[in-house]
Each structure stands twice: as structure tokens, then as C-alpha cells.
């Protein structure tokens, strides 16, 4: 009996690989298992290898597994491309149609079963159901009942027609029977029963979209881009239900300036993009900073530079997000690590943006944004809406006709009360030109210094709550530092290293700006060695830590930038290797 199992389905893009993975994952999630599913895909619609790697576990996991137990193949390329991931004793179930063979580089004892997926599907109604046949075969290997996906198929096709549901279920049964007829049982691949605990199943981008709704967002201007588009596509369906609207803009410059206009006018508004779009937003980000307009921008990082690797994982926009736009403005940059946190951080992002009246960027990475994962139920009570400092109507009534409201009044914390157009007594001017308290251009030396200090002062010395989370020994031999979706693989590596009796710790950074100098510094102080693990080539987080004056004599950068996220084993080996080296 396995507490967890790693499964992958692969084939050509456009032949239903996604939906096979989705049906498999959703069905098991419904049964109470925790799922983490990561898709490998390319920037094309039809053709090219694609696969979905699904981890099924009795406990919550935030990363793909190191190895594979079961590989479901619809073509030989799938076996050749992914075979090396199979562990000894793993199983390949492939469509007999292409006469599958095992390549030479495969682990010992991997067994290949050739099952006529396509033929059985045709016999049951249509070749398109070959993936259902394959799911049936998988069910037998894993010791699941052939109706494990009945509820999912019912909810997927039931509204269309019962006949489709029945045909699909018959196809699943046919695959199950065909696998059974091979005469071999796989008790070592059977899954331990799950605790019937209901949890959500979604991608990080869904959690962001839902978080935005919960935060009261009504407008989203955005331009489609992988891997951000899902946020927009989710809100296109949902915003009309709350009287709101999504605008598909002509470009990302329009997306952000429209967001600025709507936020200025008083509506909570967000936009979402990825690297290339982020670059286009830079000038407008400065306008939001200069005019103290709260805006929320989602940046889902993908492989760069330029068009880069549009469908692959990377964490290389951090420098651009933190240091981008000309001139100097305050910015809040939140980096959630899990789907649950995508929800809470989105809610927080709006409150922080309005509290500090500055651009707030929620930075994710492709693995976090797109991996389908089980998540604990989102807590309604977490949601609060804090619109920050707003002008008191009594004060507005005191504004003398002909005088302007001091939208940029100097205050002790640098935050000035806002008014929205349409409010009586609130007339003022807003401009990206340096300005005085009522928003009129003022290029005076003293004024510029005072206004710069006001804007930048809003975040001076601020450390946001929960900006660093920590697990592990209090005084670790090795401290691992990460950001974003590497929370999963680092956390799991930590578990394994601790089980091996090693003294390790994991500090995860959840806020990149204002940088948690104290919270991280305290952890670094107690460690003998520090390893900063991140998915980019130049060690952006590593250098950011040093930029903020934190240093450690034994601090090293561990980067990965091949387009795939870390798996726990890589981190585990890195730590073991560096401990040996250090002991020398």
C-alpha cells in the first residue's frame, strides 16, 4: 500500500491529454486524496509532446514527485521522453496501436503493458474515448474501482447527455477488464485509502481570481498572456455576476493605465500579466507610484528573457518587479507560495495597496499559477476589506469653494486621505508631474524632496506580517531560503533531511518588498550555512538578500533555470553535497 503515488499521462498536444489528467485528478480529489498536478506543454495548439504529471497523496503536497510509478502513454515519444523518470518496478501502460517498446535507459524491472486503448474505445462507441480506456487500465493497476471516476464524468457530461456518461463509463470498464486480463496484480502500487476530507481542487490562478472577487474587485482590464490568462478567463465568467466587467485591452499599457483610472475613481481593480507584459507596464507603474494610486498587478513569471519560454517555469522577473520603472517609488511585492496563499495574498494585496496607496504586485511563478492542486478550504473570515485612509465628509464640507482638496496632504505616516471623483468638496488634481499637496505641478527643490520622502516614507521600516515562514531546527547546520512555489520541494527536502538526522531549516520569503530584513536576518544569524534556492540563472533572491545588507560567511546561491521547477530530491542532494563539502 502506498501513501502516495506518482502518475503521468503523455501524448500529442490536442489529443485529450489534459482532460485525461483532469478527470483522473479531479476524481481522486473527490475521493479525498491530495493532488498536485503539473503540466508539460508547448506554445502550440496541436501536436508536440505534452504530459500531465500527477501526484496522488494521503497528505497535502506542493510539488511533483522525484520519480514516476505509473506512465500512461499514447505514443512512443511519451515513453522515450519520460521513461527515465520511472522508478524500478514502475509500470508503463501504453496503447497497443503504436507497438510500444521500452527504451534502453529505463530503470530495472519496469514493466510495459500494451493495451488496445484506441481499439477498445472504438468498440465502445468512438476512438476519442481512448483516454477513458486508459483510465480504466490505470484504475486496475492502482487497485481502484472502475467507477472511481463516475462522479466526475457525471458532473462533466451529465448535463449534455446520460448516453455520453454511460459510454465513457463503459470505456473505463473495458480498459479495466483488459488490464485485469493481463493476469497480473500490482499490490505494491495500490493506494492507501484517503481520509474523506473535502478540499478544493484548483490552479493558483483560480485562487487569485477568487481572491480578487472576495476582495471586492469589479473591474479587470487585461491582455491575454501565458501563464496569466486564466485569471482573466475566470473573472470573465464571474465578474458579471457581481455587476462587474473584464476588458480585454489592446495591450498591457492600456491594461495598467485603465486599472489606474478605475482605481483612482474608487473601484477595486486588478490586472494580470507575465514577463513581456510586465515590461510594457513599467512606465504606468511609475504613474501609480507618483500619483499614490492603489493598483494591484499580478505577475505570473514564466521563462525569460524576451519571449523566452512562454510555457515553462522560471522565477526571473523579481528584479524587474522590484527595481523596474524609472525614478523611485514605493512598491509592495507579495510572493505567495501555495494555492491557499494565492487566495489570502490577493485579499491582502488590495488592503495593502489601499492602505499604503502604492502599486502592489503579486508575483507568482508558472508552477504556482498553473499546477492543479488540492487546497484546504478558503476561510471566509480571512476576508476583510480595508480601504485605507479616506477623507472624512465633514472635512470635505470645510473645503472652501474655489479651494482644492489636499489629496497629497503631508501627514505623520505619509499616507493622505483619498477622495473619489464625484465626491463633494474633493476637487483636486492628480498628475505624474511632481506636485504639491493639492496636486498642482511644483518643481521646487524643497517640495520635491518633501514629496519624495512622503511617498517613500510610507514603507520605510515596515515589515508586513508573515513575510517569512520557518520550519526546522532553531540553529540549523544548513538553512534553505526560497520564494514562491519552491515552498513545496524545499519543504519536502527538509522533511527527508530531518528524517536522515540532519540539522536543517527552511526560511521561505513571502514578501519581497518591503523586504523582511529582520525576520530573515534572524534566521540567517542562527544558521551555519545558507543556501538560497531559486529558479533563475543569476540568483536574484540571493543578491536581493545582500542588497538589503544581510550577509553570511557561508552563503551560496543554488539556481535552476532549465524551465522545470525543483523536485524535492534535487534540493535534498544539494544540501547533502554541500554539507559534505563544508565538513572537509
Amino acid at each position, binding site marked *: 500500500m502506498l501513501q502516495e503515488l506518482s502518475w503521468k499521462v503523455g501524448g500529442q498536444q490536442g489529443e485529450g491529454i489534459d482532460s485525461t489528467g483532469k478527470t483522473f485528478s479531479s476524481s481522486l480529489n473527490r475521493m479525498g486524496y491530495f493532488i498536485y498536478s503539473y503540466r508539460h506543454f508547448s506554445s502550440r495548439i496541436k501536436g508536440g509532446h505534452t504530459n500531465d504529471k500527477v501526484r496522488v497523496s494521503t497528505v497535502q503536497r506542493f510539488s511533483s514527485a522525484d520519480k514516476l510509478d505509473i506512465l500512461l502513454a499514447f505514443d512512443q515519444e511519451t515513453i522515450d521522453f519520460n521513461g527515465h523518470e520511472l522508478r524500478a518496478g514502475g509500470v508503463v501502460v501504453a496503447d497497443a496501436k503504436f507497438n510500444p517498446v521500452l527504451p534502453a535507459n529505463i530503470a530495472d524491472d519496469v514493466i510495459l503493458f500494451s493495451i488496445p486503448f484506441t481499439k477498445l474505445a472504438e468498440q465502445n462507441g468512438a476512438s476519442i474515448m481512448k483516454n477513458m480506456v486508459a483510465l480504466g487500465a490505470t484504475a486496475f493497476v492502482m487497485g481502484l474501482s472502475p467507477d472511481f471516476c463516475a462522479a466526475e464524468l457525471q458532473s462533466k457530461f451529465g448535463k449534455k447527455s446520460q448516453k455520453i456518461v454511460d459510454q465513457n463509463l463503459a470505456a473505463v470498464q473495458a480498459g479495466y477488464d483488459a488490464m485485469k486480463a493481463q493476469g497480473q496484480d500490482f499490490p505494491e502500487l495500490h493506494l492507501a485509502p484517503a481520509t474523506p476530507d473535502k478540499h478544493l481542487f484548483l490552479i493558483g490562478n483560480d485562487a487569485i481570481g477568487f481572491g480578487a472577487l472576495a476582495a471586492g474587485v469589479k473591474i479587470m482590464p487585461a491582455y491575454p498572456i501565458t501563464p496569466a490568462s486564466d485569471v482573466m478567463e475566470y473573472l470573465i465568467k464571474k465578474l458579471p455576476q457581481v455587476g462587474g466587467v473584464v476588458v480585454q485591452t489592446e495591450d498591457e499599457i492600456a491594461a495598467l493605465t485603465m*486599472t*489606474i*483610472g478605475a482605481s483612482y*475613481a474608487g473601484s477595486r481593480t486588478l490586472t494580470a500579466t507575465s514577463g513581456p507584459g510586465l515590461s510594457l507596464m513599467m512606465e504606468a507603474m511609475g504613474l501609480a507610484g507618483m500619483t499614490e494610486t492603489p493598483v494591484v498587478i499580478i505577475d505570473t513569471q514564466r521563462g525569460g528573457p524576451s519571449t523566452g519560454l512562454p510555457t515553462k517555469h522560471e522565477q526571473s522577473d523579481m528584479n524587474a518587479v522590484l527595481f523596474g520603472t524609472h525614478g523611485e517609488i514605493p512598491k509592495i511585492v507579495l510572493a505567495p507560495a501555495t494555492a491557499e496563499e494565492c487566495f489570502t495574498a490577493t485579499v491582502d494585496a488590495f488592503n495593502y495597496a489601499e492602505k499604503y496607496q502604492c502599486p502592489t504586485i503579486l508575483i507568482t511563478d508558472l508552477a504556482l499559477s498553473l499546477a492543479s492542486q488540492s487546497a484546504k478550504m*478558503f476561510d471566509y473570515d480571512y476576508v476583510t476589506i480595508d480601504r485605507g485612509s479616506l477623507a472624512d465628509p465633514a472635512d470635505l464640507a470645510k473645503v472652501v469653494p474655489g479651494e482644492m482638496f489636499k489629496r497629497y496632504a503631508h501627514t505623520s505616516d505619509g499616507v493622505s486621505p483619498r477622495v473619489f471623483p464625484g465626491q463633494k468638496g474633493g476637487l483636486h488634481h492628480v498628475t505624474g508631474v511632481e506636485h504639491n499637496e493639492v496636486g498642482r505641478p511644483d518643481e521646487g527643490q524643497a517640495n520635491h524632496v518633501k514629496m519624495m520622502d512622503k511617498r517613500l516614507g510610507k514603507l520605510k521600516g515596515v515589515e508586513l506580517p508573515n513575510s517569512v515562514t520557518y520550519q526546522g531546527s532553531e540553529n540549523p547546520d544548513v538553512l534553505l531560503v526560497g520564494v514562491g512555489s519552491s515552498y513545496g520541494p524545499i519543504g519536502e527536502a527538509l522533511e527527508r533531511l530531518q528524517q536522515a538526522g540532519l540539522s536543517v531549516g527552511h526560511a521561505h520569503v513571502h514578501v519581497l518588498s518591503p523586504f523582511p530584513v529582520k525576520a530573515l536576518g534572524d534566521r540567517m544569524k542562527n544558521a551555519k550555512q545558507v543556501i538560497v534556492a531559486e529558479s533563475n540563472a543569476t540568483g536574484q533572491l540571493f543578491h536581493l538578500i545582500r542588497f538589503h545588507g544581510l550577509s553570511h560567511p557561508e552563503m551560496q546561491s543554488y539556481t535552476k533555470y532549465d524551465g522545470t521547477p525543483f523536485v524535492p530530491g534535487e534540493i535534498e542532494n544539494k544540501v547533502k553535497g554541500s554539507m559534505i563539502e563544508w565538513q572537509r
Partner: protein
Amino acid sequence: MAILADFKAEKPTWCPGCGDFGVLNALQRASVELGLDPEEMVVVSGIGCSGKLSAYFGSYGLHSIHGRSLPTAQGVKLANRELTVLAAGGDGDGFGIGLGHFIHAMRRNIDITYLVMDNHIYGLTTGQTSPTSDAGMITKTAPTGAVEEPVHPLHLALVTGCGFVAQGFSGDIVQLATIVKRAIAHKGFSFVNIFSPCVTYNKQNTYEFYKSHVKKVEDDPTYDAGNRFAALERVTEANALLTGVLYEGDRVTFEDGHAKYSTKGLATQEHTLSDDDYVKLLADFR
């Protein structure tokens, strides 16, 4: 009821005689005549001499970045459709760096009014060629004369399906105020191109030039402002030196096209999601 003085703000710093004064005056008159409340209006401007309009007009004002007054203004309107929203820019701002937004704002048809102060030159940067500079015009950046074909804003608007296309002249404030009134009253995106002479850097497209060359469509009983293709023909024949409302037609606005989009301003509404809606929405992820 607001009076002219209510629409005045800071004293303009435009060069004496600048055409932009006429635009400001016409907008102030139109606002008074329409009975608008300055506190219910937002003027969003871009960068350039034209960009200063938002500071000189006595409503809420938002001075955006170069070329981006249109998307910014559309955002304001979407957040609160109860406001009267205007976008303003110049020929460099609107037909150079921001041209893409112009076409998409016309397609999108959000109910705002766009005033372009077209002086055929870059004024604030002291006299470079603009997208509407006439072919052959000599400037700092075209010392031997502009060789590029100018942008034709009226043609562009007419073929893009803009529901309200007009042109005015700063030297005729009475006509311009009437045009602006109609533009604001028009439901949907309305575009007013305004010949607004630059007295410092453009010695070619002067008040005198326009006074002697421009014809008003009001004076021509055969002009049909309800016919887009006829308008295109007449504008072409007149080398675009026509003023007045050149075309007005009905089109569904972006706001009305989205049936569930709130009829009230979103900014003023409750932001909290009810417990019930929360649970229902979360049920999608099971």
C-alpha cells in the same frame, strides 16, 4: 447650477495666443450650457501642451502619461459610469505614441468624449515633426521637410466605426462649444479633432490659414452627418478642412453591451462578497 467661474482652475501657462485657450473656453462654455457639475466630471489628459488641460479645467483632473489618456479615462468611466468623463490629448500624444489606443477606444465605444488639440507640431518639446505635420513641413526633426504621410484622424475615425466624429477650430469658440456639447451628450465614444494653432512653432497652420481654408458643414445644406460613407467622401474632397459634426450614428456602448454590468457606478457600491455568494463561487473548485 455651476457657472463659468466654477470650471476655471489654475491660470494657464500656455503661450499667449495658443489655440488651446480656445479649447478650454469652449469646454467651459459647453459644460455650463449642459448644466454639468464640476464635481461629477473628470478630465483625463496625456502629455504635451494639451496635457495641461486637466489642470486648467475646474473639475476632477487626472494627468496621465504620454499617449495614455484614453485607456486611463476609460478606466475612470468603467469604475463610475455616472461621471462625465473626457479625455484630452494632442496630435503627438494621441496620433503618435497613443494611436493604438485611439482605434481601440473607438471599437470599444465606452461613453467618453475625446478632445484632440491638433497643432501639427510637437510644441512642449520645442518644435519637432508630429504625426499630423503636413508633408514637406520643415521642423527641427525634418530639416529638409517631412517625407512621411501624415495620419488622417478623421478618416481613421470614420472607417473604424466611431459613433461620433467631429472637427472644430480654436478660432471659432461658438461653433466649438456647440460641437463639444453634442459630443458630451452623445452616448458612446465621441471624437472631436480640434485645429488648435501653435503660435510659437508652427508658422504654417496658423489662425489665418484655418480662417481662410476651413468650411463649416452647417453652412452646407447638402451635408448629411448621418451617412458615414458620404462623410468620408466629403472629408476627403475638402482635404479634411471641414468643421462641425461630420458623422453621428447609433452604436451599442461597451457598457450596455455587457448586460450584467452595473447600471450604477461601481466605485460607490458595496465591496464585500456575501457569505452565500462566497460559498457558491467556491463550489466551482470541488
